[in-house]
């Protein structure tokens, strides 16, 4: 084992672990539950900077050959998730008490980082489990009513199903190719034998489930609605990014063979249409965002139809834009003692006249999620559909664009509430530290609006 490679190559992970252990020690030593936020923020910032630095210097290494290797793309992905976690942690102030939620957050991020460096199905499985298990607890931790427990259980059971499918798929691939390395997935894609294809489809289904693609999406609306705002933001921005970036690593340099195009294109397409249509009928903001995330999972998995070279760029840019937009939107939401009431779309009525800054950032987030220019969501969507069309699937791309059109209405409806409704008179309290979270998102959004090329050249 190369200790130097382990130390430098996994520096972001080590920092997360150190921060988490320190949190445990601090909690043990203090009489009253200490505030975990400062330590968590310092840990996240340090890990983010480490990942960014390693990505910028182009570090590559093999801490655990065959199990875990690191490369600049993996560091870039880790930097995206760790960076997005900072505003999410800021949102948690006032929602989650004590150091334990932050502990769970750091462990979940550790798992997310592992998945992006996984070289074998074992590491990938550990990473995905470590990513998901703390989130089940976090969904539960809200405990804002019986809904939270039900949502957490649903998420847990379906998440377990995804793990089972992943393991089954990996064992079938082991049978077909004789190895547990994730390269067996790429090999299985091209093999065309029934055993390998079954393995591939099971693994893809597991990722569809984790990413909330129709028909594996049923957990998302309940989990998003039942959790508290920071946890929902975490699921929408970071869990989705982790799952998708891990899928990019899994697919590697392999193209999608023609025989598998239909299943891999069809479900995301249905996901876009159904997610966008179902979102129209929601009256809860978080539930609406859940359906929106189902539609966005569809766009993201579309990226896999494109040429392998462009996949990472497309997915990474998309998850950055998408994550920023979600956190920006959640930061604008009103806080309330009665969470279910604050979550209703009607509570946004007349937001502009009461909190203009929040209304404007919420509006930008919604328009960008809808994929309207000049916001980054448009460039992200453009990149994905361009890749699909370049791969020769013109009809599929056009169908996808039409499905994305269905989503316009419900995003505009949020603007309608925020800007065109008359205020009911009562003041809506803002979330604590929401301004900081929202500025941390707004500045990158502004930069990406004017200079998307800068980031695209570097991905």
């Amino acid at each position: 084992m190369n200790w130097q490679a382990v130390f430098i190559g996994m520096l972001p992970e080590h920092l997360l672990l150190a921060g988490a252990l320190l949190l445990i020690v601090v909690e043990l030593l203090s009489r009253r539950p200490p505030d975990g936020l400062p330590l968590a923020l310092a840990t996240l910032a340090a890990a983010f900077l480490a990942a960014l630095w390693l990505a910028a210097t182009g570090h590559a290494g093999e801490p655990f050959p065959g199990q875990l290797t690191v490369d600049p793309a993996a560091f870039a992905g880790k930097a995206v998730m760790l960076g997005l976690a900072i505003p999410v942690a800021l949102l948690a102030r006032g929602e989650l008490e004590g150091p334990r939620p932050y502990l769970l957050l750091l462990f979940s991020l550790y798992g997310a980082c592992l998945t992006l460096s996984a070289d074998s199905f074992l590491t990938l499985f550990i990473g995905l489990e470590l990513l998901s298990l703390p989130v089940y607890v976090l969904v539960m931790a809200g405990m804002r009513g019986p809904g939270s427990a039900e949502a957490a259980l649903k998420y847990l059971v379906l998440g377990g199903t995804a793990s089972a499918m992943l393991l089954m798929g990996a064992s079938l691939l082991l049978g077909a190719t004789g190895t547990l390395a994730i390269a067996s997935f790429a090999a299985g894609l091209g093999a065309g034998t029934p055993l390998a294809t079954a393995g591939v489809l099971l693994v893809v289904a597991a990722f569809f489930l984790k990413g909330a693609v129709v028909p594996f999406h049923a957990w998302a609306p309940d989990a998003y609605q039942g959790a508290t705002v920071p946890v929902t933001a975490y699921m929408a921005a970071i869990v989705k990014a982790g799952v998708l970036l891990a899928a990019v690593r899994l697919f590697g340099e392999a193209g999608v063979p023609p025989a598998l195009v239909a299943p891999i294109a069809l479900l995301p397409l249905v996901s876009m249409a159904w997610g966008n249509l179902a979102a129209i009928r929601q009256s809860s903001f978080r539930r609406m965002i859940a359906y929106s995330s189902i539609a966005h999972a569809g766009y993201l998995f579309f990226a896999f139809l494109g040429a392998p070279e462009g996949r990472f760029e497309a997915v990474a840019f998309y998850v950055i834009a998408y994550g920023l937009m979600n956190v920006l939107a959640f930061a604008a939401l009103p806080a309330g003692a009665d969470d279910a009431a604050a979550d209703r779309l009607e509570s946004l009525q007349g937001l502009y006249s009461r909190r203009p800054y929040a209304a404007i950032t919420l509006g930008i987030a919604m328009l960008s999620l809808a994929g309207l220019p000049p916001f980054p969501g448009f460039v992200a969507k453009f990149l994905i559909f361009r890749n699909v069309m370049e791969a020769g699937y013109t009809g599929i791309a056009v169908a996808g664009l039409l499905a994305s059109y269905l989503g316009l209405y419900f995003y505009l409806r949020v603007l309608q509430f925020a800007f065109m409704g008359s205020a009911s008179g009562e003041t809506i309290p803002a979330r604590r530290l929401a301004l900081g979270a929202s500025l941390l998102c707004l500045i990158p959004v502004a930069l990406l609006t004017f200079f998307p090329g800068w980031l695209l050249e570097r991905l």
Partner: protein
Amino acid sequence: MAEATLLNYVLWLPVLGMAALLVLPRGADAAVRGLAFVVMLLQFVLAAWLYGQFEAGVAGLQFETRLPWIADWGVYYHVGLDGMNVLLVLLTAFLGPLVVAGAVNAIRQDVKLFHAMVFFIQFAMIGTFVAQDLFLFYVFWETMLIPMFLMIGIWGGERRIYATLKFVLYTAFGSILMLAALIYLVWSLYEERGALSFAFTDLYGLDLPMNVQAWLLGAFALSFAIKVPIVPLHTWLPDAHVEAPTAGSVILAGVLLKMGTYGFMKLGFPLFPEAAVAAAPLFMTLAVISIVYGACLALVQDDIKKIIAYSSISHLGYVMLGLACFDLLGVQGAVIQMVSHGLVSAGLFFMVGMIYERCHTRDLAAYGGLAKAMPVYSVFFMVLTLASIGLPATSGFTGEFLVLVGAVSAGWAQHVAGAGSTTLVLGVMAVLGVVLGALYMLRFARLFLFGEERLPGGHAVADLGLREKAILAAIVVAVFWLGIAPAGPLAKTESGSLQFQQLVLGDAAGGAP
């Protein structure tokens, strides 16, 4: 050339204005209005100076800026003026200060946001006109929806939410198909040349098979036709116009609708020339249907705003007819008609807004004999009515006359050459449309201005104030300028019309007929 950057100032000035608005405190309405007016006036002065410096008879772009934007994709921030857009940029900048001045009494709620949206839409509209890169064009084109959505939705009438959603969902549907066509088009260019580029000049030369051209033209044309709007895609327009605040209607009729016709001229027809020539009879037929149908609907409306709204459909039919006949005079006329309609309909919407502020109804039956109660108002109204009909010496005459001459002479040439008489018949039918135009506008003026004096509520109303007179006087001066001395604008736009004709018909047909 130092002044090459001037166009960028015209384009970005509204964005600076938006930033300046952020600094002003909430509730400082007078300061907000003052700032907005000054910035818009400055934009107009700069645009007028640009227009003055624009050299007539020079093919290609002037005041060009080209900087890499998304270098990986070959996307450039590429803007410039040519004969096609120079007059439209001037029109947009001209209406800016008038919109701000016209909103002083009408907009009382969220004044800061309103002016931010005026800035935003000016930026997007001028950007759409001056963009020379397809990606940049699409970004500006779609961006326009956002301020318009808010403008109708926040400051509109009773059914504003319905109207604004209909407007956005209608136009966005066209755009999404245009986006698909855009990606396909650029990808085809890449496969042919091996380089990614979104530049108009690169895309013009692309040699596509006829069936691909037909599909792509269909996607672009749907998007543009919704914006124009061409019958039968016009149903969003009356709702949007009726519910929009005066400023929204003025921007919508004055500039936004021209995006569609400009799109046909700059992109739709020149990008897919063979398909455009083949589909010309279809476009001409739809144009004539728009002229006649719009006029017939305008004839039976009771709502004064709807009369102007439907008249827009009719007037833009002439623009489409002029473009689709590919005759130089017709194309020239189409360009003038775009500007003329921008001025006249903007003026009429201002006037409708002014009377609505006084009487709070748009029901035509509630009015009568305004000529006695409001003489100054009535004079301005009559002048704009006559300009709308196309009386000689007004801008409407220059535009419509050239379009009709172009359409009929193109039709006659085809008829003589034995290529069928469809164009000729359509041209003649369009001439009959002028009669309908006179009919509905004069009916409107007769019921509105003359007859027994009748005002809603029965109380007396004040005639126009100085601010209102100044707005209308500016428009009337511009209307007469285009009507009496069209030689200057025609000379400046001729290179654009020639370029359009050459791109569509090929070099063989270039030059004046």
